[in-house]
């Protein structure tokens, strides 16, 4: 059975999503979804182990050989992303059980899990497949289910947020299809590796740069790279907590993975960075994103939206690493992929705990929570410090490599900006901390009834917090994998 792990990784959540729609009551659907997410997680771990030990895995769907049939191709890069996605899924789903019951209409809950599992399927599918059109199909599976998840939020703003996300997302996806079509028109193949080989022989054609441009813009939309980010803050802010935690930690990460795949495997680093001068496009955008989004985050009153803006800044860090285009830069980017997924999921889950008990996530709602919900707020503080990049947390590891990569290029001002924005992160995290620990609780009855969140929410949150600290204290594994992934993408022999 281990030979079929690549396809099972996608098929299991897909079939489970279908089954989930029929399950009643909601608790059964939840238990089933949790079981599935854990299975998926185990498969991802096994795949990563196999890839680290034995190199790239190739799986041919339907027995059709690689350039013609659809191939699932797993190397260190996507095995790592698979692990990120499935880890977050496996932690968020157990958490969803209680959180969702508070935030979503009862009869819609099985649908929520269906959409959740479909989203998981789509994200895993994008990551695992070696066929560019297949990427589009899975992209749409994940996007459509994400729109649904966002629309399930409690407030009516969720609907408009979902609608805008849908329009922007569809435009982005269509751009990606155009790019893929152009590539197909010049090469006649859809297999990534095959495309990479053939494109390296094609030089003087106008189609390839156009395809490159369409793909870059399309993926950047999905990635919410500044200035194509406008859909993200509201989508994150209005989605149900569990959905936000999952989407924030995975969706943009998978988009980054797509970017890496297309830039390095399909187009090749030489074309992307030397011919198209990608670094000079991405770098300023990343820097502007890091700075402006951190600044905007400081002035938000809705904490969820604040974290959404912070996500945009963090995406800037990741693209900054990629735009450098060296092994260290890519290592930093890929490392931050994992690290940011862990810290943001933990933060959004802590917010979910607050919503569960307090019902609001405006900054005033946090007054006095340090006393009333000590464990939740402690989780928020630790994950927040990780976001700032304090030593012994994963955030520090990311910053370290990012700055190292920037210094290798001798870009002092960029390093200064990265450090300065860490301080801005400190400012917006600290606003919440001050509200929680230094403002007295409101004295009305509602506030007096606020207690610590139930264990079913706290345990998954704290698991992620512990992950944040563990991989901050011993980052050997993540650094090793990210380093190997970067080398694989750049084709550096090891």
């Amino acid at each position, binding site marked *: 059975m281990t030979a079929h792990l690549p396809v099972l990784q996608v098929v299991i959540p897909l079939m489970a999503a279908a089954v989930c729609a029929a399950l009643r009551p909601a608790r059964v659907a939840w238990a089933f979804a949790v079981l599935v997410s854990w299975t998926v997680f185990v498969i991802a771990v096994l795949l990563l182990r196999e890839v680290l030990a034995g190199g790239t895995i190739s799986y041919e769907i339907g027995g059709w050989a690689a350039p013609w049939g659809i191939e699932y191709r797993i190397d260190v890069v996507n095995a790592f992303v698979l692990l990120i996605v499935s880890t977050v899924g496996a932690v968020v789903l157990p958490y969803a059980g209680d959180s969702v019951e508070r935030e979503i209409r009862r009869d819609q809950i099985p649908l929520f899990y269906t959409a959740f599992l479909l989203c998981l399927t789509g994200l895993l599918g994008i990551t695992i497949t070696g066929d560019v059109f297949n990427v589009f199909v899975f992209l749409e599976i994940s996007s459509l289910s994400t729109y649904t998840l966002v*629309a399930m939020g409690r407030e009516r703003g969720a*609907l*408009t947020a979902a609608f805008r996300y*849908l*329009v922007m997302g569809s435009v982005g996806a*269509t751009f990606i299809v*155009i790019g893929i*079509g152009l590539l*197909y028109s010049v090469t006649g193949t859809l297999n990534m590796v095959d495309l990479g080989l053939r494109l390296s022989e094609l030089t003087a054609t106008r189609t390839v740069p156009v395809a490159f441009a369409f793909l870059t813009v399309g993926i950047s939309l999905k990635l919410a790279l500044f200035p194509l980010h406008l859909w993200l803050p509201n989508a994150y802010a209005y989605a149900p907590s569990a959905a936000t935690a999952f989407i924030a930690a995975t969706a943009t990460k998978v988009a980054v993975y797509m970017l890496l795949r297309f830039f390095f495997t399909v187009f090749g680093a030489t074309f992307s960075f030397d011919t198209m001068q990608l670094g000079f496009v991405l770098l300023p955008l990343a820097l502007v994103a890091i700075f402006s989004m951190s600044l905007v985050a400081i002035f938000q009153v809705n904490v969820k939206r604040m974290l959404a803006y912070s996500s945009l800044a963090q995406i800037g860090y990741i693209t900054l690493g990629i735009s450098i285009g060296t092994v260290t830069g890519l290592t930093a980017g890929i490392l931050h992929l994992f690290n940011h997924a862990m810290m943001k999921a933990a933060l959004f889950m802590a917010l979910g705990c607050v919503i569960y008990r307090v019902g609001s996530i405006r900054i005033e709602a946090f007054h006095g929570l340090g006393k009333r919900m000590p464990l939740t707020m402690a989780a928020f503080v630790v994950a927040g410090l990780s976001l700032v990049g304090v030593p012994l947390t994963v955030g520090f590891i990311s910053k370290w490599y990012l700055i190292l990569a920037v210094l290798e290029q001798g870009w002092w001002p960029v390093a200064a900006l990265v450090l300065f924005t860490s301080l801005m992160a400190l400012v917006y995290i600290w606003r919440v901390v001050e509200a929680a620990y230094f403002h007295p609780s409101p004295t009305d009855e509602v506030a007096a009834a606020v207690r610590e969140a139930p264990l079913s929410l706290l345990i998954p949150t704290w698991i992620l917090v512990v992950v944040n600290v563990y991989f901050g204290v011993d980052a050997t594994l993540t650094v090793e994998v990210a380093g190997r992934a970067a080398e694989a993408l750049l084709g550096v022999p090891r």
Partner: protein
Amino acid sequence: MEFLVGHYNYWVVVFLMMLGFYVVISRTHMVKVLVGLSVFQTSVFIFYISLGKIRGGTAPILIDGPAVYSNPLTSVLILTAIVVSIATTALGLALVVRINEAYGTVDEEEIDAIERADEAAVLEAR
């Protein structure tokens, strides 16, 4: 002239694409935005299908003797893309219906105005 006529399929595609895209970004009525989105996506379908079409080629069905086939793959791909597009449009329309129920309007500017009023009311209440 050869350039203009020889690539007429591209001109059609580009015209539809720009038309659809313009509607998407310029309209505030949500249904119109969806219409624009559909046109935008359709232009891509035409693009793909025209890529695979060979003048005088037949459908790729096994017949005796040599024959010129059109490339079936592009059509197959676009079949998938059409399904996706339908799903997107359907979901979009479903959202529009619910937005109409929630706000009483489907105009984005009016909705923004309502949201701003809500926010102002919250600030007022404090």
